[in-house]
């Protein structure tokens, strides 16, 4: 180790990347493993910003690609976020190169001509050779590192736990990642790679699932529901149900719901929000103000027009005077100027303007027209004489109810007729067939056989009943009556509630709340039931049972004696209890098992890797530049926490 100097430890996770020197207590650099390229039209702007930054002394060329913590507002560029990862495998090497640039710049390598430090890098379990080949090429050729050591994050994490507690040789590690969940059996300190299984569900799926659910639950607040907010909800408020079905049934109970529901207040604008909730009176007041203003504008325009007319009239009168004073030449020239054909035309013009002015003056003098509001009030029907207002209103109420009921019945019939096999649809078919039959009989006899149809007006209702589309004259008339009723009722009855005013009762803030209840258990449950998001993979419990079955009974027991939970998603509350319940169900009666939660689940991999790098025999696990040159680019040195090297067969 001494020959190589300090080791740089990089835990390259698909969610977060942690970078630090092996002898530090915690990573110097932590960032979301994403990058974004600002769009072309924004480039100029960011370039200018970059320029001002350089002026302030960083001496760096304006970076057009933002990585990790450099992204100031992640929500603004959410659609343009790029990750080198697909699931937990690096597939885009350009992006990975940008990430390395970022890492090494932030770690202060700017100015040196290569990265002259060994690197410990985590990689995916069973990382394909193709990917490691690319990684090796990138590290050795591009950055000129002296040596590298690859390992699996879950194993480092387990290592870390053992260092703090006690040494064990057998374990079942369950690693909850951002894009995958691994079940890793370890026997005699060696990973049983062929029996590892990976569930392709992780934190990413949980967050996206919540995001989609909330978007569909609250289509109105589409823009307020962001991935960042959903992440926070998942991190802070979700938990794993110990007994999912049991907790669901609890949630179905309204009292439980009211007691446990979490309401998230979204930011909202007081003014616009209350605008929609003004009382009817305030609305009328506003409308009146608006009308006044419009009237004023109209009056002003009329006055201007009047003044214009008067001026015009003055000019024309002058012309007329010219004619009367027999100044013919002057008169004709003036006519030409005004584009008037002859004397008659001039007279006509003068007349029209005169009448227009008169009209306007009359209008100004006349009393202002009664406002429409007043007219409406006058038109509003009054209770018939001899009936008290209350009785009349009650009558109207019942009338309205009746119409509503009729409307609903019609709606019901319509929706039932739309489906086949319902009684309504069959009844309709029966009526149609009887009608058709009677018509046929008539024709067969050759003469009219009157069955008396049509004698009674109600007979024609048959056609109404078989009409699929009930928007006929009946419902139109009903609608009109209903409107009339509601108008009168809302005018006279202060307590009248036509169904729309329900919303007014709520405060504006309540309209901007998200209810977060059942989601807190529903969302993380996809780890145990991937079928909820349409995945056909076995859930976590089933997967553990599957992996255990690959081993003989005695080894199964050795594995379940030490079950370790690690990774970011292991922070879910209730996870340990749930797994205990599931293990109890799958293990033989009265057998034992124990589950350990690794502390600092999201950081322990990095800490374990550091511990490994500080060991005296660390240099034996390093793949050096010489190894790389001798054994080819896919080669790496195996060690306790690494993958197993299977060379790609030669053709």
């Amino acid at each position, binding site marked *: 180790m001494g020959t190589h100097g300090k080791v740089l430890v990089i835990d390259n996770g698909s969610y977060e990347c942690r970078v630090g020197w092996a002898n530090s207590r915690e990573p110097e650099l932590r960032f979301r493993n994403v990058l974004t390229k600002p769009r072309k039209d924004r480039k100029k702007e960011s370039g200018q910003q970059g320029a001002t930054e350089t002026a302030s002394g960083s001496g760096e060329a304006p970076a057009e690609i933002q990585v990790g913590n450099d992204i100031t507002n992640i929500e603004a560029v959410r659609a343009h976020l790029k990750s080198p990862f697909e699931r937990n495998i690096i597939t885009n090497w*350009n992006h990975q190169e940008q990430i390395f640039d970022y890492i090494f710049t932030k770690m202060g390598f700017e100015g040196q001509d290569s990265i002259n430090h060994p690197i410990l890098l985590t990689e995916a379990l069973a990382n394909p050779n193709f990917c490691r080949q690319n990684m090796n090429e990138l590290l050795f050729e591009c950055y000129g590192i002296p040596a590298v050591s690859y390992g699996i994050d879950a194993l480092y994490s387990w290592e870390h736990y053992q260092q703090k507690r006690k040494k064990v040789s057998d374990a079942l590690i369950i690693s909850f990642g951002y894009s995958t969940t691994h079940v890793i059996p370890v026997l005699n300190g060696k990973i049983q790679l062929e029996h*590892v*299984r*990976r569930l392709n569900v992780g934190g990413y799926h949980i967050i996206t699932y919540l995001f989609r659910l909330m978007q569909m639950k609250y289509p109105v607040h589409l823009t307020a529901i962001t991935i960042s907010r959903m992440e926070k909800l998942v991190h802070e408020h979700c938990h794993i149900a110990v007994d999912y079905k049991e907790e669901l049934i609890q949630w179905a109970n309204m009292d439980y719901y009211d007691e446990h529901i979490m309401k998230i207040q979204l930011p909202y604008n007081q003014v616009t929000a209350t605008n929609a909730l003004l009382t009817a009176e305030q609305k009328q007041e506003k409308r009146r103000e608006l009308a006044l203003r419009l009237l004023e504008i109209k009056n002003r325009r009329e006055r201007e027009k009047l003044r214009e007319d008067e001026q015009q009239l003055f000019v024309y009168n002058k012309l007329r005077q010219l004619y009367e004073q027999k100044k013919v030449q002057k008169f004709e020239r003036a006519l030409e100027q005004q584009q008037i054909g002859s004397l008659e035309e001039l007279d006509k013009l003068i007349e029209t303007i005169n009448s227009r002015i008169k009209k306007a003056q009359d209008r100004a003098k006349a009393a202002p027209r009664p406002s429409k509001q007043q007219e409406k009030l006058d038109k509003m029907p009054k209770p018939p004489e001899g009936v008290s207002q209350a009785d009349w209103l009650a009558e109207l109420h019942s009338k309205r109810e009746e119409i509503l009921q009729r409307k609903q019945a019609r709606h019901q019939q319509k929706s039932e007729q739309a489906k086949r096999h319902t009684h309504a649809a069959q009844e309709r078919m029966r009526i149609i067939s009887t009608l058709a039959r009677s018509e046929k009989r008539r024709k067969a006899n050759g003469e009219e056989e009157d069955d008396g149809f049509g004698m009674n007006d109600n007979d024609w209702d048959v056609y109404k009943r078989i009409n699929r589309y009930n928007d006929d004259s009946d419902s139109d008339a009903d609608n009109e009556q209903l409107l009339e009723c509601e108008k009168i009722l809302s005018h006279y009855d202060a307590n009248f509630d036509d169904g729309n005013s329900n919303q007014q009762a709520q405060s504006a803030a309540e309209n901007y709340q998200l209810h977060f209840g059942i989601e807190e258990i529903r969302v993380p449950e996809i780890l145990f039931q991937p079928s909820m998001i349409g995945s056909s993979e076995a859930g976590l419990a089933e997967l553990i049972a599957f992996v255990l079955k690959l081993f003989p009974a005695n080894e199964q027991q050795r594995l379940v004696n030490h079950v370790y939970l690690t990774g970011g998603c292991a922070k879910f509350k209730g996870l340990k209890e749930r797994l205990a319940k599931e293990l109890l169900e799958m293990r033989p009666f009265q057998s034992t098992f124990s589950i350990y939660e690794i502390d600092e689940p999201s950081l322990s991999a990095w800490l374990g890797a550091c511990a490994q790098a500080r060991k005296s025999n660390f240099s034996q696990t390093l793949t050096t530049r010489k190894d790389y040159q001798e054994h080819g680019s896919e080669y790496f040195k195996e060690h306790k926490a690494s993958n197993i090297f299977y060379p790609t067969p030669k053709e």
Partner: protein
Amino acid sequence: MEAQGKTKRSFKKPFAFAKNCVYRPLRQISNLERNLKLPADRPTYFTLNAPPSLVPAKKYSDISGLPAPYADPHTKLRFANADEYASMQHMPSDIINGYLTVRGYTSAVG
């Protein structure tokens, strides 16, 4: 193009990936490994996938997540009670489709 995009850093040597190696989706890597005809017992990334579930999937309401004994034959949405059914009747089709795709439902007709 690519070379322009890269910023010059002192610690980097001129380097470029082979053109077809810069970006390979996972599916291509999977095909690549399959074509190698590895021995059957050799574990690779793609053999470690979780097996398909043998337990019948539980049915939950698409809207509330409650256990759902019913399904609407028209929209194919699952629902737990009459209230949910009523709310479904006024749902726009894009939300219905959204719920169905989240659950991974695809109709045979397409």
